[in-house]
């Protein structure tokens, strides 16, 4: 009796996850396995001939200047993640308590996250216009005669994208932090206050360590999400000017869907996978030092 109930339960369990597993298998596992195979071929889309070329694609990647440019741009892009997390923590700490218009401000900070990426892209392109955009207009008004060219120079474009991305991620990071801050027992903060801790000391030594698991979560998910980001950069710069905003994901897209070089694009994709994996493993090892559960 008991056994058949158990059996029924586990069958039901499989039935529940079945559709999802089928989807994952069809649209994720199989393509991933296939791309692993393609990595070792010279497959170009529309060309029916596939040859096995061994490690040629990987060799080509390692000798490709653009690959290193993309790698460097990706690193600069990822700098936005910790910055956004720090800012989000400060904003969340401020919005957690005595501030007027608390709820309105929370909603406002969250707005970018639920706005269409393309709309965001176009608004920022207007804001960043070097000659007659509002940002440089403001900078000139306060006495800076040579404001940066933002998206229009190869030196500053990646940082301009960083600023957009920080602003975009802020709301999401803030909401998660707000939830974590609600979980902090009031007694701990109160005890610190009775012991004479100043507000910034409380934040630094009590609140920050207590939300460290959240920081860790945001760091891992943020890095993974950012390294895969494609849409917003494609909408704003398409990787330019020059190749100054070509990040890895864009580089893969260009090779796969602009030049149809699927084999080469697969190789870069797996390189990107290896990088994400390495990042995540390093963080798991590193977290023991600073994450307090």
């Amino acid at each position: 009796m008991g056994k058949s109930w158990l059996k029924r339960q586990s069958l039901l369990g499989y039935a529940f996850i079945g559709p999802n597993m089928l989807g994952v298998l069809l649209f994720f596992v199989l393509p991933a396995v296939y791309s692993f195979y393609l990595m070792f071929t010279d497959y170009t889309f529309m060309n029916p001939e596939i040859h096995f070329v061994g490690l040629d694609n990987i060799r080509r990647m390692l000798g490709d200047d653009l690959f290193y440019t993309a790698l460097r741009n990706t690193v600069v892009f990822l700098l936005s993640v910790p910055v956004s997390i720090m800012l989000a923590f400060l904003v969340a700490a401020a919005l957690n308590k005595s501030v007027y218009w608390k709820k309105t401000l929370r909603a406002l900070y969250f707005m970018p996250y639920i706005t269409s990426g393309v709309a965001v892209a176009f608004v920022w392109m207007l804001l960043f216009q070097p000659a007659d955009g509002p940002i440089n207009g403001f900078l000139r008004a306060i006495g800076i005669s040579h404001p940066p060219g933002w998206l229009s120079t190869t030196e500053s474009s990646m940082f301009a994208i960083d600023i957009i991305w920080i602003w975009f991620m802020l709301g999401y990071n803030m909401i998660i932090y707000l939830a974590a801050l609600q979980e902090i027992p009031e007694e701990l903060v109160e005890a610190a206050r009775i012991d004479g801790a100043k507000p910034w000391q409380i934040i630094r030594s009590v609140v920050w360590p207590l939300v460290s698991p959240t920081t860790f979560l945001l760091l891992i998910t943020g890095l993974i999400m950012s390294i895969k980001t494609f849409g917003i950069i494609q909408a704003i710069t398409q990787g330019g000017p020059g190749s100054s905003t070509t990040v890895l994901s864009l580089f893969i897209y260009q090779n796969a869907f602009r030049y149809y070089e699927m084999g080469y694009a697969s190789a870069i994709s797996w390189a990107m996978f290896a990088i994400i994996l390495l990042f995540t493993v390093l963080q798991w090892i590193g977290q023991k030092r600073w994450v307090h559960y």
Partner: protein
Amino acid sequence: MRGQSMGQTATGMKKRWGAAVSGLLLASLLGGCVGMGGNQQATGASGEAGEKAEGPVKLTMWGGVPPENGPQQVVDDWNAEHPDIQVEYVRYVNDDDGNLKLDTALSTGQNVDLFVNYAMSNLDKRTKSGVALDMAEFADYDIDKMIGEEAASWKIGDKYYGLPTTRNSTFVALNADALEKAGLPIPQEWTWDEAREYARKLKESGFRYGLVQHMASFSDPLDSAMVADGYTKQDGTSNMDDPLVGKWLETLNAMMKEDASTPPLGEQLTSKMPVENLFLGGDAAMLNIGSWLLRSSNNQKDFPRDFKIAFAPVPRLMENADDYTTSGGVGDMISINAKSAHKEEAWQFLKWYADGGMMPMAPGGRIPASSAADRDEALKQMLGDQAATYDQASLEYVMFGSGIPTFTRELSQEMVDMRAQEYEKYFLGSQTVEQATANMVKQHNAWLKKSK
């Protein structure tokens, strides 16, 4: 007790709901698979069915022009005359995503009977994959004779894999009123140095920019130089450090920075500058563009203007006018899908289209290339009720009379992009002319070696 039983019922309900939902999901997924399979079978079978059945033959044509700008009128005209062959027009956007969509449709055997190629690099891929039919199959149409010798630039391995249908023109559109005021004649041939002088004077006369350039035309002068001097040197290595390349880079750079008579490239790219609006709105006096300008300049409702437009050929880099070639020639290369079940019908439609059926496309700037089509009628249609707002003599000159030989860009997309990256870095000041050309040569050589 009561509460417990309630709870049990509730979980029971949940379970049943869960099972129902997951069942539904599963069914829909399976349904999707079955549907896909069914569809494929249907497409596969449609050929045979079409030959046997009495109903009209259905053709699908994929093109990049929005239906309302002519193509819908064209297929409506055909369908009214030919009840037995019905054509449907599907629009794809002629960019990376759109071409990918068409290529996916072609390689997965979806219903595409005819498709329009806008670039040699696209046609080349489609030919290699065997989806573009060799036109030699049809003996009743002499492409070289009907379309003219310019058609040959679309040949791949001495064969036509489609029929070029339009006469493409690139030109510099001029604000005729402004030129007259500044005492500048409408040029019939000119160099970039002269164009720079024009731009400077026109800027001084009060325009924000003397010259703006459409990004599709921007790098044409480079190809023009390469067609004259060769993309590669005699020894097979890259010729991208040809003096004319440096000449182009330096002239434009001076126009951007010293004269401020043309927008800095960084600004133009990142603001996605709408150059047609700048020109038609009177902010820029000259515009380097092609016949697709007519789509906007004929539309006075959205682009009101109070000046006449005149036309000049694109300026040349080399001193000697005899070495000059310009982008253009014939375009809108329409191929028949080699796997189509109705090649013969598709061919009938294509001939009719090229020999004048495409006339409703003229207001969008698409003049038929075939000698069977009525050129004057096409010009009349193209200008419509706006004819008085153009300097027609100069328009006819740049379209038909200049006698400048034309080319179709054959450089691969990768190299076009590579070149663009290097000149962008130069115009944005992060490398010198020497570095830019050296980088182009280096990467072009690597490419030449790889594709050997």
